[in-house]
């Protein structure tokens, strides 16, 4: 049933209202909804990029939230959010991750454990929206390998800059403690070039203070995985069609590479070169392995298409396979030895 479905004239609406009444009803609806939804409105405003608009909105929404709380109108929404496990963190959650205790574990993260059909390698693919298609491409390969299984956790518009928007440190800690993945593939950065508001000051993306803090956060995540004995494949952002974003991504990629070199469990895999045309510039269409011209990037100039994700996975997956134990003495399964041979000869 669709609302405009009124073929029968007898069903034509007979209920007419004056504009004044509609305005009053709208006003009541808007006010009451804003009050009942004040916790979410506050969250939305807090998640906005730091700037003048956010500074104007924040005191207004704070006041609304206080009124809502005093009138108990926010309780249904808060209860529903609690039931649905929704919440948001703060910059301090990175410090909590930094302080998280290491769990006893046999592996040191510098190599992968043996993998077999009975005991497949557990791959966890995490990151911003780039992680979705990339994760799916890796998942298809993992599934086809017969000795790996993969889980993708891609969160739209998230990253390491704004843990108040999405709390990656807590998400990582919770997942690792309950699921103990063997290896993690991460891709962050596309949403990270935004102003950081810290106790020490406000830093625009690209500032030395911003670079220092971003480097610290990257290191906290890598260190946590290292303490947990988990192998990490940290994927760099591919070039973007947007000039400023591309500049920022270069800086982020440099941080990832530099920090990864300090953690023996972490491998940095750049994608930058993979999406350049013959002149070394951004290209949305590139030739695939068979020479066909294929759209590799979506129209926004940032994300990967399915074909683009396949192109990236063609580089990442063999790197993971190469880390599987090779000899019998290292506990390699027959399947993983066969698979490794196949990838090294022909590519995926």
């Amino acid at each position: 049933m669709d609302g405009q479905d009124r073929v029968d004239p007898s069903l034509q609406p007979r209920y007419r209202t004056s504009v004044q009444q509609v305005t009053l009803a709208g006003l009541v609806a808007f006010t009451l909804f804003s009050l009942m939804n004040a916790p979410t409105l506050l969250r939305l405003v807090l998640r906005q990029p730091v700037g003048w608009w956010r500074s104007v909105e924040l005191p207004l929404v704070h006041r609304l939230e206080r009124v809502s709380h005093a009138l108990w109108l926010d309780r249904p929404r808060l209860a529903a959010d609690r039931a649905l496990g929704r919440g948001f963190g703060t910059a301090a959650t990175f410090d909590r991750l930094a302080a998280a205790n290491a769990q006893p574990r046999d592996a040191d993260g510098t190599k992968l454990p043996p993998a077999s059909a009975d005991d497949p390698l557990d791959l966890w693919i995490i990151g911003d929206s780039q992680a979705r298609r990339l994760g799916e491409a890796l998942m298809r390969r993992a599934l086809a390998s017969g000795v790996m299984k993969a889980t993708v956790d891609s969160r739209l518009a998230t990253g390491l800059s704004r843990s108040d928007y999405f709390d990656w440190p807590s998400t990582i800690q919770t997942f690792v403690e309950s699921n103990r993945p063997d290896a993690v593939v991460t891709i962050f950065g596309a949403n990270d070039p935004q102003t950081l508001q810290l106790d020490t000051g406000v830093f625009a993306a690209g500032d030395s203070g911003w670079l220092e803090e971003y480097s610290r956060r990257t290191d906290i995540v890598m260190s946590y995985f290292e303490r947990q004995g988990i192998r990490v494949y940290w994927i760099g952002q591919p070039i973007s069609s947007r000039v400023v974003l591309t500049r920022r991504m270069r800086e982020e990629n440099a941080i990832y590479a530099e920090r990864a070199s300090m953690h023996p469990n972490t491998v940095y895999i750049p994608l930058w070169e993979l999406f350049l045309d013959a002149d070394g510039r951004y290209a949305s269409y590139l030739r695939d392995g068979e020479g066909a011209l294929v759209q590799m990037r979506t129209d926004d100039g940032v994300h990967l298409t399915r074909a683009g994700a396949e192109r990236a996975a063609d580089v990442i997956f063999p790197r993971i396979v190469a880390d599987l134990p090779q000899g019998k003495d290292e506990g390699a399964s027959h399947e993983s030895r066969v698979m490794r041979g196949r990838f090294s000869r022909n590519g995926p």
Partner: protein
Amino acid sequence: MLFPTPQFALFFIPIFLVSWAVHRHRGIWLLFLLVASYVFYAWWDYTLLPLLAGVTLFSQTIALRLHVAGSERARRLLLFAGVGGNLAVLGLFKYYDFAVVSASNGLRQLGLGLDPPLLRVVLPIGISFFTFQAVSYLVDVYRRGTEPVALGELALYLSFFPHLVAGPIVRAGEIVPQFREIPDARRLPAAEAFFLIVGGLFKKVVVASYLGAEVVDPVFAVPANYSAWQTLVAVYAYAIQIYADFSGYTDIAIGVALLLGIRLPQNFDSPYAARSIGDFWRRWHMTLSRWLRDYLYIPLGGSRVSTAATYRNLLITMLLGGLWHGAAWTFVAWGGMHGLFLAVGRWRRERHRAAREPRSTRSVLAWLATFHLVCLAWIFFRAESFDNALEVLVRLVDLRSAAGPSFGAVAIVVSMLAVQFVPRRLFVELEGAFARLGPVAQGAALAVAFLLIDTLGPEGVPPFIYFQF
């Protein structure tokens, strides 16, 4: 600026208030709505405003000349130029890269390597809709079905923000007369508008978002990970997702326009209650169906030609209808399948008529067959490539895994299908009950409904599927 966002609410509230404050002064009212519509479009990408304005000016120039042209030859030439110009704009932005890449890859197969220049432009949002409306205006003027309208009226007709980015595809004759009447501020169909907006939001934010993210996307991304039952439910879920997404959008669009005193045409009529593919197309995206019928199928000869030519016309119409949805061969396949289904349906009807046999009255079977044929075609519509579609089809017949679908997905699919059969009188009565409430109670009910939708929906609503077309 998506409809289900605080930004749109903050955009619309002043539009509503100012529009009714100035509505008695027709010129100011229309100018205000036009400026609001251009601001709405600029919010997406202000660099595209010249394109929208250019299509308007070009179409008006042709329409005025077409109206005064003396000879039929001149009129035809002008129509050809007008329609061709609009389709060229659509083709350049939407299909140029697709055509060039397809040709390049085809030639490469023949051993001819070419690196043709690509346009590499972002598809302007709503271009498929406003160019089709411009074409319908020109054809209607040519057919003398409508007089050329004033430039401001045409500009507002093409850009009116509720229908600008994803329809319904409106005809000038439906909407321009409404611009010429001063709407009655004492007789607003507000209950109907609120029901449409709340229902549309629920369908989009809750149903379509959940099914897309939790059921459909994972299965189409890695079909090998799922059993036949899970895949089957994902295909059904996609049918519901795209219906909830698109009809949700148009319900909101129609409701928003009603609050401004403008009635847009109906676009959906319980499409999954259809008992034949022809019936489906009379209920699904109805404004596109009638556009294809009036401006493509009938000019091709429609059914007033030989039987073979009628089947050809059906196929051409649906193939082009498929291509209209997107520059990819999977959309062409989707359209082709519907063309084939329509042709077979017509052939069966003709056969029954010739034999003077009553047509099958087993309507449950007819409904089941129709729904499953529509779902089969949706696989190609949703898949990112033919390989992806084949993967899904293979999973549907691979019975090695018995893993079942989630209860939530099945419950939503069944509920949404059941709603298609609920008598419309029930909805009208509910609307009446709402209308009889006082404005304060109406406002409170709306607030609770909005809160429920916002709570049940995901954090961050994905764009409407039809925005990409």
